[in-house]
């Protein structure tokens, strides 16, 4: 399956933006585990996910073609 990954802040220096292929991912917890394996630096960073522009606070199902934003702590203002 394919997931459109968009990254921000310091995570954009670790994981590039773009379509990424996965064998099979059922939910965001699984996606996070796979990403942290592929990009070990991610494991050391606090981050939040948004699915199709909706910020998620807990584990959610992931479907083919979804857009996932990976966001480190905000620092606007």
């Amino acid at each position, binding site marked *: 399956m394919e997931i459109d990954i*968009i990254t*921000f*802040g*310091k995570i954009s220096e670790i994981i590039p933006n773009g379509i990424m292929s996965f064998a099979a991912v059922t939910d965001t917890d699984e996606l996070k585990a796979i990403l942290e394996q592929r990009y070990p630096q991610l494991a050391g960073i606090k981050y939040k996910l*948004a699915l199709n*522009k909706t*910020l998620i606070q807990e584990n959610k199902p992931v479907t083919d073609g979804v857009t996932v*934003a990976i*966001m*480190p*702590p*905000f*620092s*606007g*203002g």
Partner: protein
Amino acid sequence: MSDKKIKNIFIQGPVPPSFIAESIGKHSSRTSIGAHQIFLGQVRGDEVSGKVVTAIEYTAFEDLALEKMHVIREDLFGKYPLTCMHIYHSLGLVKTGELCLFVFTSSAHREAATQACAEVVERIKGELPIWGKELFDDSTHQWKENK
């Protein structure tokens, strides 16, 4: 649903002082206003282990930020008797000494504008997906972190 008009808050580069003056001047016809509260964020030339911040480069997850800002705006209009609320945040490069955030609240009596202004600044810093990259004078950088 009723009032689902998402306002843009982002401006490219710094907030010019003249823009603030124009924004203030536009309120002279709203004669129910007695108090304006304005918060301005200015980029500090912080020194970090011998290096000096020369600018901050801002990026945002714009769609999500604007939706979240809309929610914050509705929350605050529901909580305080405000006449107006205007928010502007920079994207891109803002040099040290320039302004990156302009929050402007107005009300008949000062309490509402003052409390809403402080609350919206707090929520902008905590809830909007915006990131600041601090650029140093030796061409290195570090990602800003809000305390």
